[in-house]
């Protein structure tokens, strides 16, 4: 049972990070390879706000959530907007450069030392006994609920709100969407804001659970196979991809060898790319040679 609980936590983490990749790709066809750095940046922002508003954890959390949306928005307006109309590969390269820049800046500002926002917020990460000998930290349990809430929120947003439908339209056919009067830049900016928010939530929860250091950016990249397995433009796919990759990883640790767990996501990924390159729930598109 503990193994199932461990899988659930990892699924939640990967699904949250994966949603960031999917949101941007789905709307703009840009692969944001700075997703790991963005989640780390939001986690550091939470740490700074927690230091500033130590006595008011709710304010610090709310501030970090707002800042995550703002960071995504500003990044799009200042940087990615200029890439509109350019080759997609150019935009992807910009996100790589952005990631490198952010990593350097974060070390300069926050020194790369282990930061612990939970303690700054004055909270405890108490273990929760869930019955049948299963225990998880309270932040890990929160992570599962936050992932569920965000995915439900995103499904509702895309299905039932005007801007959600517009963003889907932009993702499917930007030219037609523009001709129908949909403001493309607003849709793209919203995608960046939402992606930074959902990835940032993963970063904040990871930082609250076990601290924050420079390796978080790599965890962002580790979630990349999740979205490739599930399909780069499918939120449903991100959940299923997270389930497959997280299960494979945890079961490899438990049943085979911990060292295998690092390789397993990529084995799953290669198998998927060989059989169904667009992923389980992704849209079948022309695959261009690189």
């Amino acid at each position, binding site marked *: 049972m503990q193994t199932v609980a461990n899988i659930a936590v990892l699924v939640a983490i990967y699904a949250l990070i994966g949603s960031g990749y999917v949101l941007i790709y789905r709307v703009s066809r840009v692969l944001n390879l700075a997703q790991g750095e963005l989640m780390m940046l939001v986690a550091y922002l939470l740490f700074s706000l927690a230091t500033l508003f130590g006595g008011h954890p709710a304010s610090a959390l709310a501030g970090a959530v707002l800042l995550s949306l703002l960071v995504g928005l500003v990044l799009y307006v200042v940087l990615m907007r200029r890439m509109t109309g350019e080759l997609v590969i150019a935009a992807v390269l910009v996100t790589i450069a952005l990631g490198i820049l952010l990593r350097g800046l974060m070390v300069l500002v926050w020194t*790369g030392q*282990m930061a612990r926002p939970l303690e700054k917020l004055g909270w405890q990460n108490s*273990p929760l006994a869930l019955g049948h000998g299963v225990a*998880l930290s309270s932040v890990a349990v929160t992570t599962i609920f936050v992932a569920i809430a965000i995915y439900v929120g995103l499904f509702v947003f895309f299905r039932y709100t005007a801007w959600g439908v517009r963003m889907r339209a932009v993702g499917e056919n930007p030219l037609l969407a523009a001709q129908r009067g949909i403001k493309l830049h607003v849709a793209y900016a919203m995608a960046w804001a939402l992606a930074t928010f959902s990835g940032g939530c993963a970063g904040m929860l990871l930082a609250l659970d076990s601290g924050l*250091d420079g390796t978080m950016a790599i*965890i962002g990249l580790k*979630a990349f196979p999740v979205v490739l397995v599930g399909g780069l433009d499918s939120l449903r796919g991100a959940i299923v991809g997270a389930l497959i990759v997280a299960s494979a990883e945890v079961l490899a*640790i438990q049943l085979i060898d*911990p060292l295998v767990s690092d390789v397993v996501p990529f084995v799953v990924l290669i198998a998927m790319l060989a059989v169904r390159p667009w992923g389980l729930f992704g849209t079948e598109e022309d695959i261009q040679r690189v």
Partner: protein
Amino acid sequence: MIKRSQLMLAAVLGAFVSTTLAADSYVLGLTGDLTGRDAANSGAVADGIRIYFERVNRTGGINGHKVEVLVRDNQSEPSRAATDAQTFVNNEDLLLMITASLSSTYAPTISESKRKGVPVLFAGGVCPREVFPPKPDPLLFCTSGYAAETDVKFAVDYIQSVQKNATLGLISMAIPISRGSIDQAAEYAKSKGMKVIGHESAPPPTANYTPYATKLKEGGADWVLSWAPWVTQVKTFEALRQLGWKGNFISYGHNVAEEELKRIKDPGFLVFTTNGMFSDGQPVHKDVLATAEGKTKFPITYLNEGWVAAMTLEAALKKAGWPVNRAKLASAMDGLSVDLRGLRGGPITWTKTNHYREQLYYRVYGWDAAGNRIKTLKDWTSREVK
């Protein structure tokens, strides 16, 4: 408006003054990970060295000459370390290179050092094989506290001294040095009759340590030993506690250990280390605290390794005298004994056959819940370095 000729004159004068200053001072080059993945560790080492020599310079320098430390950031990238090393060895005034970054940067640094005969001091990271007895490289020296094999043997012996029939779980980071040392720990523990329930190895970026902790707990470990970067050690321990594990966890004490013991406040979390903690309250610790106050972004307790490196370098430069060149400095380092005044359990002693040290001194620290303070669980214990 300043004329071009005036600017040129100023530039020429500036270059002359800079050369003169360099020629009049002991010039050292530090290539370190200041903004990379090991910045928290290496950056503190670099700060310790910088702050130490700033004070040396304020108080008249060494043999009447100031010490100039040129610092370059290699981000623990081998290619950057190679560029740094090339730049340093081609600076004719430079006497010695200091490396404070991950071991992946060592190869290009060593290669450049050999090309131009520049001594290298490894400070803060693991010591390369070439500094150990019986035939160390004449140009390579190390002050870092780590010595994987000796470290884990000490830890296993300590566990056995506390609990004779302990069931031991092991956790490493999936990098060669950490895995290798924990494999050695497993073999050693088995040879001592301990029950070893397995060796978990977590990749450097791990989102959740609970699966590793689950396996250790379900395996029945009542002690867990880790020799790995701090993140792996502490996150595994915290995951174990989240699962309700009640055993003891002993980990290598990196420079962050003292602050972490104060944060964790768990009597079951122990660190073994070759560096004394500031809680010892030795005069040298008070000296470091007073000197470094307000001069570093790191907690001052992180500066231990950098301070040790700087004290050793000061002794080497003093012995080399003035004028000095690279060969003379390397020769001076070949027979050196430096009293570390309590920063470690004993001196750093380099000989022609040993550029690491002849004895390692370990201490075990833990948390005294009743006294709400760090306490020494085992006092300095020496181990011969073979």
